[in-house]
């Protein structure tokens, strides 16, 4: 059941992205920015939390979940450490993913070469 919920919630979030891609001239880069910002805003308003409770990874794995984590981290930081926490909280909460992207990106660039499409 948990997996089904994750599948449906995650799938639906991606469908929203696909509809925007196909009906507008926006690029995937635009979609990513819109989704992460939407996640931050919804997270800040407390509207994303219920979706995470319901969908689990289906809500946290898509980029709005990344935005939600940023917002949640910033708000928790603000609560515990004040203004400094508002600055550090977001990145603290998401540091794992960002750091992983940097190091794995670099390693992949070292070991792999791009292949042409056909």
């Amino acid at each position, binding site marked *: 059941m948990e997996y089904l919920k994750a599948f449906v919630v995650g799938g639906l979030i991606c469908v929203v992205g696909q509809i925007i891609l196909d009906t507008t001239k926006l690029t995937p880069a635009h979609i990513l920015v819109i989704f992460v910002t939407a996640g931050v805003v919804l997270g800040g308003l407390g509207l994303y939390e219920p979706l995470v409770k319901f969908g689990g990874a289906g809500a946290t794995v898509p980029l709005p979940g990344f935005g939600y984590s940023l917002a949640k981290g910033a708000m928790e930081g603000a609560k515990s450490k004040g203004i400094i926490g508002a600055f550090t909280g977001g990145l603290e909460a998401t540091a794992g993913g960002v750091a992983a992207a940097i190091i794995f990106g670099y390693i992949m660039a070292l070991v792999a070469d*791009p*292949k042409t499409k056909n």
Partner: protein
Amino acid sequence: MAIKRIGTRTVKLENPPSILSTYTIVGPKEGEGPLREYFDEILEDDLWGQESWEKSESKIQEETIKSAIANAGLATKDIDYLLSGDLLNQIITSGYTARQISVPFFGLYGACSTMSQSLSLGSMLIDGGFADKVVCATSSHFSTAERQYRFPLEYGNQRSFSAQWTVTGAGATVLSSSGNGPYITYVTTGKIIDPGIKDVNNMGAAMAPAAMDTLINHFKDTGFSPSDYDLIITGDLGIVGKNIVLELMAKEGYDLKGIYTDCGVEIFNNIEQDTHSGGSGCGCAATVFNGYIYKEMLKGTLNRVLLMATGALHSPVITQQGESIPGIAHAVTIDVNKG
């Protein structure tokens, strides 16, 4: 007194330069397309033993030019001018190619219109008495164009149906003041026409009005009608652009059905090879002309052809600033007779 000009935009070449030889090299995907038998060389690997796509493209252009010169029974010292261009910033492919082929060199930028641009200027140099042997060449490479204009190769994006596929390949033509043809007989130079299209995934629509403008003026200047040609072929308008030209030219009173097609439509099996609207890039018109068209003219199946390579003269910088895509098309008449 410009005695060779006719009408407003056309030059009638008094002593039409003859094509002595051509050569084409294409990448593996083009080599699987419907025109494969017309290409002189098909690469198995589009990196061709080089360290980068850019170096590979330069090698492709260089080998194409050298082989075209050799096919004409000439040596590089016999060549008065090399006219070439490509899509990359500062036309580095052509510059680095010319570094290897030590002949007087004019680098051209006409985006994908470069093949007919170089043929236009090369013909005029010869007919003007400034040169006896001129090489006209151009190239493009899918992987160099993708990284300059679009996304990294390993980025997982979807391509829109109006998008086109940059041809990996180069074509070169050796023009001479003497020879047995086919000859370049007329040159109609395009103006920039910008219909205000901003969608870089819809180049065909952005360039189609430029092609129509050149074509209509060519007919007016020369007195030709579509039926005077065995083939009228644009460079890389793709399926979308080709349909626009057919429809709007009919409205202008020119029925092009059965005579007109587009190199980008012909070079790939667009459905099977998943190239969407068709091929594009300088190499598209260059390989189709120097491969398919030239060889069919030698066989005698085509006697008079109008080649009209089309270019979109934009860059990612200026389109990101919100500018639209200016189009251009240059036409050259290639005739097995001297006109």
